[in-house]
Each structure stands twice: as structure tokens, then as C-alpha cells.
């Protein structure tokens, strides 16, 4: 079983973790890497929320005089070939990246939970069909399936979110299903059945809350994958369309030409992608240690 009794575990371990402040301090000491990840993520979320206040230029306004300008005091990270300020584009790009990352992970998790819960709880032919469909979705690499779906749907923000969410379903559904199978046999489910609770209600009120811990761990891992996939799709020109400031799009193929002439166009957007994904990975590892003690090593 998953132990989400974080507080009691702390007390047992003899940690002085009273109150919100004490717990935060404990988290920082026990999981320094996870704390760094949380800080990185918080910075990107704040940048996305307050992009209007921390940038001096519009990410879309062009200026021929500034074409391929090197980093300077006015334009910290330089400008692209259309003279757009790179710093502004990266800050606004955080919105796109996080919107697609969180949107597709959220949608993928929601669909995966439904499939996993129904297939694990009902079993029988529903389970059989659901499992085969998951097999099919899993047989294609994430990027290949997302690529074909994005091309079929056409480039737009919502289509990109949808195209990335579908390949994320199988991993979520598999974990939720195996958890549901284990939980279904436990006494509290039998008790709920004995007092005449409907199957649907048992699945939603008793099984689902017990699968939250593994879901959080998995969702954090998928978030990084989703952000990377958006960057790859946009890099290949099949994700977020111009003029939206997507980090992957900023690195699009012409980047190979800018390597000699304007390396800042290549360095900074890639740094932003790597940093945000690094943050999700650090956070994900710490969450797994906390929420899924079986995996602790």
C-alpha cells in the first residue's frame, strides 16, 4: 500500500517538523534536489503569470534595425532575425510551454484515469479491449504518434495539447489499472459493497482517492516528457504556429545557420527548455521518494 501519511512518518522518524514552516524546512533538508526542482518550477510559473510585468518589449513586435542584434544592455539576450527581443520571447514562451505541458498532461491523466479505473474495476471484455487499445498506442514512440496526430489536426495550441495528451494515456492507464486491481480485493471495498454502495460510487469515492499518490508521481514524470515533445514538434514546424513564442519554434531548423552568426538564438531557448524539464525531473524524483516508498533506493 502507498503511504501518504507524510506527517506521521515524519514524527516517527523523529523529525522536528511542526507546522508549515517546519515541514518546509524538513523537506529542504531531506530532499535538497527536489527543493531545487520546486524552486525552478516556481520561477517558470511566476515568469509565465507575470510576463507582462517583467518584460520591457512585446514578444511579437519586430524591428528591422535590430535584426540578429547581439545581447546588449537594452536587449539582454539579443534579438532574432525579425528583430524580436529574445528575452521577452523566452518569458512569454514559458506560457506556451507550461500551457501545453500542463494541458496535455492534465488531459492525458484524466483520460488515463478513466480508462485505467474502468478497465481495472469492471474487468472482463471491457478490460480486454481497453488493454489492446493501450498496446496499440504504446507501440508507437511518443514523438511519432504526436507528430502524425499534430499533422492530421493542423498546427494550433489546442491541437498540440490534444496530440501530445493521447500518447500519454497508456502509461497512466496501466498504473491506475494495476492499482485498482489490487485495491478491489481489499476489505474496505467489500465493506462498501456490503452496505449497498453502487459500483460507480465505490470506484469514484474509494478506489480513486487511493490511486492519487502514484498518479502524482507519474504525472510529474509525464510533464517533462510533454514539454520536451512540444518543443520537438514546434522545432519540426508541426506544433505551435508562428508568431507565438514557442521555445522549440525559436530553435527551428534555421538554427543551424545561426550557429556561426548568432549563437544566442540557439543557446537561450534551449537553455529554457532544458531548465524547465530539469525542474520537473528533480521534483518528480523527490515526489516519488516521498509518495512511493517501495521505489526508495
Amino acid at each position, binding site marked *: 500500500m502507498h503511504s501518504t501519511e507524510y506527517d506521521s512518518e515524519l514524527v516517527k522518524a523523529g523529525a522536528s517538523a511542526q507546522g508549515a514552516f517546519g515541514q518546509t524546512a524538513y523537506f529542504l533538508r531531506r530532499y535538497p*534536489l527536489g527543493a531545487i526542482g520546486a524552486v525552478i518550477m516556481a520561477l517558470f510559473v511566476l515568469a509565465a503569470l507575470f510576463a507582462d510585468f517583467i518584460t520591457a518589449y512585446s514578444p511579437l513586435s519586430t524591428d528591422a534595425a535590430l535584426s540578429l542584434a547581439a545581447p546588449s544592455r537594452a536587449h539582454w539576450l539579443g534579438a532574432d532575425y525579425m528583430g524580436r527581443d529574445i528575452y521577452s520571447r523566452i518569458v512569454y514562451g514559458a506560457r506556451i510551454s507550461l500551457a501545453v505541458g500542463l494541458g496535455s498532461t492534465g488531459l492525458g491523466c484524466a483520460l488515463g484515469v478513466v480508462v485505467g479505473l474502468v478497465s481495472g474495476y469492471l474487468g472482463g471484455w471491457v478490460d480486454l479491449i481497453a488493454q489492446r487499445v493501450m*498496446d496499440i498506442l504504446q507501440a*508507437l514512440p511518443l514523438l511519432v504518434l504526436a507528430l502524425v496526430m499534430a499533422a492530421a489536426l493542423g498546427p494550433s495550441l489546442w491541437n498540440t495539447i490534444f496530440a501530445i495528451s493521447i500518447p500519454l494515456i497508456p502509461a497512466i492507464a496501466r498504473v491506475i489499472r494495476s492499482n485498482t486491481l489490487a485495491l478491489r480485493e481489499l476489505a474496505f471495498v467489500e465493506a462498501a459493497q456490503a452496505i449497498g454502495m453502487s459500483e460507480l460510487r465505490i470506484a469514484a469515492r474509494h478506489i480513486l482517492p487511493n490511486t492519487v499518490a502514484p498518479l502524482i508521481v507519474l504525472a510529474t514524470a509525464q510533464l517533462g516528457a510533454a514539454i520536451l515533445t512540444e518543443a520537438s514538434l514546434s522545432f519540426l514546424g508541426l506544433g505551435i504556429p508562428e508568431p507565438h513564442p514557442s521555445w522549440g519554434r525559436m530553435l527551428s531548423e534555421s538554427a543551424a545557420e545561426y550557429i556561426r552568426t548568432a549563437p544566442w538564438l540557439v*543557446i537561450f531557448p534551449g537553455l529554457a527548455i*532544458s531548465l524547465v524539464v530539469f525542474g520537473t525531473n528533480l521534483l518528480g524524483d523527490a515526489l516519488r521518494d516521498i509518495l512511493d516508498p517501495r521505489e526508495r533506493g
Partner: protein
Amino acid sequence: MGAYLVRRFGLMLLTLFGISVIIFVLLRVVPGNIVDILFDSAGMVNPAEKVKIEKELGLDLPIPQQYAAWIGGLVHGDLGYSYVSEKPAIAEIAPRIPVTAKLAAMALAFSVLIGVPFGVISAVRQNSAADYVLRVLSLSGLSLPSFWLGLLMLMGFVAWFGDMPIYTEPPATLWDELLLYAAPAAAVGFRSSALVMRLTRSSMLEVLRQDYIRTARSKGASASSVNYHHALRNAMLPVVTVIGLEAAFLIGGLIVTETVFNIPGVARFLVEAIRTRDYPIVQNLVMFIAVVVVVVNFIVDMLYAVLDPRIRYSG
């Protein structure tokens, strides 16, 4: 084992059939078909000609009939014709396969050669400074998009050698080819090596906790003998499954990396074909990728049963 093999093989065929249906339908719901695109680029406006082209390409038939024609052809080794070059699809795809295969093999070798030793070091010295550094490195490996890593490498080449190792003409010798593929293979392999390292580490830690390791230690076996002779051999078993995972992982990396390094392999060709809506190429390439992934996973499953005598599949 025999019955399991048959059942597993049947499921594999079922999966491939499902993929073929999904890909086919997905490509047919694409807004704006190839005929419109051909028309736009050729500047033709005659609707009668449009109907004629649609008929020639078989696009006027109902989707199930088009699907049956494709699968029927596949069985006979006829993949149809590319819309763009009008050459047989097989002639377009086949010569590109060895390029990607070599690149993938080099990337896989790179990821195992880097990932396994560092994973072992990280596990043996758990919670030491070396372990922390290696874990952070492997996490950063998983975080770097491989196309960006490729671009950074090109940047390094420009800074130090003043030139980029980008594919411009077919390499003359095997040595030239290896040199040309080394950078892209490292860009793809670095990401995979992080995956291999993490799995090796956790598998090694699992094994090091076993009773027989304690027995080996207490009978006085040296630390290196315990780590490498007793533990590593058993820890490598789960790592074999990584190769199955890697097949899918590597293909994702190859798609973007071949684009960065301008390598004429199947992965970059897929992106080009998707952009030009060249359905016969796209559907056959995606099918090819699916077959590779599914077959590799099938072989890994079987290999796993052979390597681990505790696993005996029944029925």
C-alpha cells in the same frame, strides 16, 4: 513457453493491425489533401483535372477500400508510389534504412557504454558525492532536448575546428561515415545513456540488498568481487529490458537529430513526408517504425525468459 510464444505473437499481429487502421484513418481525416496541395503548387484550377488526379491516386474510393488496397499491396511487398517523387515508395524508403540503422546502433552502443558503468558506480557508492553528481548528470541528460544538444555540439565544432560535421555528400569510406555519425549518435545516445544509468543504478541497488550478497560479503569476498561478480550479473537482467524501451526512445531522438545534422535517414524522411502530405510514404514509414518497436520488444521479452531461469511462462 511454446503456447506463450504463440499467444504473444498473435497479440503482436493484432497490435500491428490496430496501428495500421489508426494511422490510415488519421491520415485521411487530414484537412487539405494532397490534391489541393499539388494544385496550389502547380497553379492548376481546372476542377475536371482535379477529379482526374484524385481518381488516379485512388482517393475517390471509400476509405475501407483504400485501406484494403494498401494492406493487400503490403502483403505482396508493394508499398504504393510516393505522391511527391512518383517513384515506388519502397525505392524511396529502403536506401534510407541502413543510414538510420547505423546511427541507431552507434547511439545504442554509446548509451550502454556510458550508462552501465556510471550506473554501477552510482549504486555502489550510494549517497556519496559521486552518486549525487552522477544522478544530477543523468537527470540533466534526460532534460536536454537531443536536437539542442546536437546544435550545441555543432557550435563546439565551429568554435574549435571552424567547420560543422553536417551531412552534405555520401561519405567515401567507412571511417568517414563513422566520423560523420559520431556527433549525432552521441547527441541521441546521451539522452538514452541517462535512462540506462538510472535503471542500472536502481537494479543494482535492488540486488545489493539481497541475502546472497550479504552471504558473499560475510564469507570474505572482496568488495569488487561482490559488486562485479555477484551483483552486476544479476543486476544486468532488468537492464536488458531497457533495450526494448530504448527502441522507442531512440527513434524519437533520431527524428529531431537527423533533421539537425541533415542526415538522409528514414527518421528525417518521415518529417519531410508528413509536411508534404505524402501519405504512401508516411503510412508505410510509421508502420515500419511500429514493426521495429513491436518486434524488438517481442525479442526482448523472449530473451528475458531465456536469460532468467526463474521466469517460465505458462500458457
